[in-house]
């Protein structure tokens, strides 16, 4: 896998639908320190659009978002 990222916090969002993945991500990010990385897995295809949009509106950094079959894996670095 290209650019393997080490995650500080892991989150399982599999089976959850809009708007819950965003809620869980925002709650997880809130508890993290700046610079730490969150890794999450989800199955809702809406996440593919929503996670980039969420990081854009909150100013956090989306390191990667990949789809592997039904599973979507993404990494977010807390910027603020």
């Amino acid at each position, binding site marked *: 896998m290209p650019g393997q990222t080490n995650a500080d916090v892991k989150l399982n969002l599999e*089976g*959850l*639908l*809009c*708007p*819950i993945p*965003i*809620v869980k*991500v*925002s*709650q997880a990010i809130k508890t993290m320190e700046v610079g730490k990385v969150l890794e999450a897995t989800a199955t809702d295809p809406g996440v593919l659009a929503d996670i980039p949009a*969420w990081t854009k*509106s*909150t100013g956090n950094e989306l390191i990667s978002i990949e789809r592997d079959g039904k599973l979507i894996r993404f990494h977010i670095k807390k910027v603020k």
Partner: protein
Amino acid sequence: MAKEDGVTIIVFSGDMDKVMAAFNIAIGAAAAGKETNMFFTFWGIKAIQKGNLTGQGFFGRMMGLLNRGGINTIGPSRFNFWGIGRWMFKQMMKSHKITPLEELRQTAIDLGVKLLPCEMSMQVMEIKAEHLIDEAEESCGVATMLEKAFHSKMTLFV
């Protein structure tokens, strides 16, 4: 001083589908760190009622009976068919694992979304503060809603 990029949602409709959309948007905004206020007016009040019967006068009691509040009593704007549609929607939401409306409302509350009831609507429909869920704020009027809206980047009317 309030942040200048909040979100204000005026919930006028008491229809299940529209209320669901309103809570969804509010949750999304709150999860993005925006100060989010929901102003419940007219039929929208039903979404923050406990669900018990309301009204003092004859008309008020009729209204309370025929237009009963409570997040689990409200039906969709289309295909309700006296409650059959509501039941059908709930079943479909359950089978697709969509978060039920009551849980959505609780999520919004947990994220700090403020639920503001409209005083005028409450008086007209004879709904008292004790008929509303405990998480609802003090009732207010148009000026309060506008003050929030002036400091918002986005104001929606649902």
